[in-house]
């Protein structure tokens, strides 16, 4: 089962270390390495903090998130909520 969605980065600092760490935490919880985050052709698995950081996404960037696997729907819903919630930041 594959789910693909475009998610927008809404916090003012963009996808910095703390936000990237939250994505990695989530991906680790699902224990699958089949979550891909993409921007402008670059794609990385969601469990690598450095790779996510090197995508260097400022506020407003739309990322393509592709999740493959059994719980992909649930995983995507949580990922979506994380982006909506500005990674838990108030700005």
């Amino acid at each position, binding site marked *: 089962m594959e789910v693909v969605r475009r998610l927008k980065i809404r916090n003012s600092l963009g996808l910095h270390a703390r936000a990237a760490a939250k994505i990695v935490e989530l991906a680790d919880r699902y224990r699958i390495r089949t979550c891909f985050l993409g921007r402008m052709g670059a794609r990385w698995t969601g469990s690598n903090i450095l*790779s996510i950081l090197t995508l260097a996404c400022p506020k407003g960037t739309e990322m393509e998130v592709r999740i493959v696997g059994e719980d992909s729907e649930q995983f995507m819903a949580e990922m979506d909520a994380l982006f909506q919630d500005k990674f838990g930041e108030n700005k």
Partner: protein
Amino acid sequence: MRQDAVAGEKSLKGIAVYPGIVIGKAHLVDRSKVKILYQYLVNTEHLNGEVERFEEALRVVEKEMQSLKNGMAEKVNDLSFILDSHLMILKDSMLRDSTIRTIQEEKINAEWALKKSLEKIRKVFDQIDDEYISNRISDVENVTERILRTLSGKAQQSLSEIDRRVIIVAHDLSPADTTELNIGKVMGFITDVGGRTSHTAIMAQALEIPAVVGLESATDVVADGDLLIVDGSTGVVVVNPDDGAIIYYQEKKLQLEDYRSSIARQSHLPAVTPTASGSPSRPISNFWKK
């Protein structure tokens, strides 16, 4: 200002990051970089052993960081995030998988392969426009240095083992170092590098420990066990002070403590602003004036 400084006593000036005066013995922390040797490994058996040695080093470092994180005082919980991200870097394929691949393909030792991975990551980070993100390479360097130390068998001098009241003197302190500080034992710290917004400065503020950073030559000038006076308000550090200096700073310290406790004693009273007429007026919050 004191004028009677004598020979033998040296004075340094850096960036003050947390106010307060401490007088105590210096504890020099050696954080010189580990030397890396290149080794070519012909034997397949050696290569497998090398991969295993690297993976074992990662496990050791992971365990160290986990126990640091677990033992961290609640006060600095905010900074446990730094350790979390270091744990993630440790597992990152750009560091881990790439090093293992380099060991196998180029038939070289783990240290050299790890160094190559770091250089590769540095190149990617150098190209990032966002200064905040490109600066995160320092976190990768901290993690790499820890792995290299473990590989070399040169145990990291742990700051958590300090059992006397001392003032830490270091070239720089990594975030992991600062989280290891035994808060009850460390009176203050001074470093050669760092600025007002460096990890060390943030840590000093979180722990409320007098600190001076950016002293440039502190580790050259200060020897282990030297008597130090650190003035975290002015950024002045006096090495091997004479009696006059000690008395001067003792008094300044007492005044500062008196002043602080008087503020603390009055803090329960309502804020009052004296007016021209002499009768006190209570301040009104701007909120109600809208």
